[in-house]
């Protein structure tokens, strides 16, 4: 099942993977091929490529088991460092926010994001690279999380807080009305007992950035 030029279409060239859309066994799938980085030491490169390929597949499966919407994993090809997953069609959350003009709709969707993230964290899945480009609104209006290459399994409050912090920073750098958007996300995230410790830690993580001595 080698990919040939005729049957694949490059849909995204990310920082560390090329993402192709292709058809296998009559099913539209995404082939995410990690490529080697010549700037880094071969040992480090091999470790990161292999580790992230496996971790992405593992976290996707774990999400699926716990009812969190992610693409189906179809196959992992270690030789070509390629992950084959289900193709999700629809706009990214970023595209959706930029095109949307209903504050009501926006509020609803942001609350959904908060609930999904809380759910994911309650199963100790840390996404590692949360951005509004890594969430897709599919045809049935379900929010689907993608890009688990930097994910990890962790029970640590710190890791969960940093996960939220990464998303907050992505909001700030991408969306003009980020404060309102992210506040709604957190409101929905906070809608449970266990989330309070995480949110308190998020406050610490933020302060660390702001208060750091930045001499030199």
């Amino acid at each position, binding site marked *: 099942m080698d990919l040939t030029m005729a049957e694949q279409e490059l849909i995204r060239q990310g*920082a560390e993977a090329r993402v192709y859309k292709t058809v296998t066994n009559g099913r539209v799938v995404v082939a995410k091929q990690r490529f080697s980085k010549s700037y*880094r030491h071969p040992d480090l490169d091999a470790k990161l490529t292999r580790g992230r390929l496996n971790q992405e597949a593992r976290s996707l499966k774990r999400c699926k088991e716990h009812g969190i919407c992610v693409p189906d994993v179809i196959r992992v090809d270690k030789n070509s460092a390629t992950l084959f997953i289900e193709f999700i069609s629809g706009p990214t959350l970023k595209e959706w926010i930029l095109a949307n003009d209903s504050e009501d709709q926006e509020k609803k969707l942001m609350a959904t994001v908060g609930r999904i993230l809380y759910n994911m964290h309650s199963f100790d899945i840390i996404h590692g690279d949360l*951005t509004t480009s890594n969430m897709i609104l599919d045809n049935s209006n379900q929010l689907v999380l993608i890009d688990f290459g930097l994910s990890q399994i962790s029970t640590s409050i710190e890791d969960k807080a940093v996960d939220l*912090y990464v998303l907050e920073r992505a909001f700030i750098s991408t969306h003009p009305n980020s404060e309102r958007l992210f506040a709604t996300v957190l409101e929905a995230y906070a809608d449970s007992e266990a989330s309070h410790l995480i949110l308190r830690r998020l406050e610490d993580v933020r302060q660390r950035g702001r*208060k750091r001595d*930045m001499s*030199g």
Partner: protein
Amino acid sequence: MDTKAPRTIVALGLEGSANKLGIGIVKHVYPSGISSDCELSPEYVELANVRDTYNPPAGEGFLPRDVAVHHRSTIITLIRQAFEEAKIGPQDLDCICYTKGPGMGAPLQSVALVARTLSQIWDVPLVGVNHCVGHIEMGRAITGAQNPVVLYVSGGNTQVIAYSQQTYRIFGETLDIAIGNCLDRFARVLMLPNDPSPGYNIEQYARRGSKFIELPYTVKGMDVSFSGILSFIEKMAKTEADKYSPEDLCYSLQETMFAMLVEITERAMAHIGATEVLVVGGVGCNVRLQEMMGQMAQERGGKVFATDMRYCIDNGIMIAQAGALAFARNFTTSIEDSWITQRFRTDQVHVEWRV
């Protein structure tokens, strides 16, 4: 203001936020005046750029108190030297620019005091400058990079920055310690000399290393963390010194930390669709970092811009450069507002001179 008549701005820049004291004088020429609605890109003429560095003994870091003493005792001589080099006098100045922050309190304060005094003696307006923005504007002026993603790496800062809507936005940064701080502290463990800088000596050791030792690698989105890697390698150097040579440790430390930096820079570039990258700050003169960044940029069909030690290490002319641009937009700092601050985020500055 008549926007047709040519105009020049001559700015004195005073920098002393850490252990380097830098004095610079820059002349900006606007052949057809300063128009109010476009990006300012004056002709850049460097008149002077002098520096004096305070180095503590090997194995020690610098203390704010000692650095302040150094700055206080050196600054007048250095300012005189800058004027001699520039072949101008105080009467030729349009503004005096000083570092308002971020940085170490006592050294910042001692330099601000001199700036404030000179401003009153010579009756020349003051311009308070953000140190990080100084680095960015200097890098842009020297390399000609138009709209790059900026990696700012120094003893106190590790940030991935991109310009948007009159703000230098921080896309990624360290979640704990700065890369330069990590390198400095490891140099102390190995007792490497602080002259010319601990990072420079680590770089020389790393060149002779060849065995790659696996170290923790922590990237979260566009952020990085260095504290884990530092405690890990410190322990290695202290308890397993017979197993690993200092050269291999330096080599592996650089390879790992720089790979993290290149990775988050590339992620930011992919995120906003940029092809240019500019490396500024003291760690930015590390040749291996520049080389790795260059390889990444090339693979993306882009280009890396970097400066040499005159400009990427803290200096006075970068403060003059950023200050002169703000001054061209009529920004000045009154005596009452001429305080300093240890914490002054890059994204807090309104970049009025760009569109």
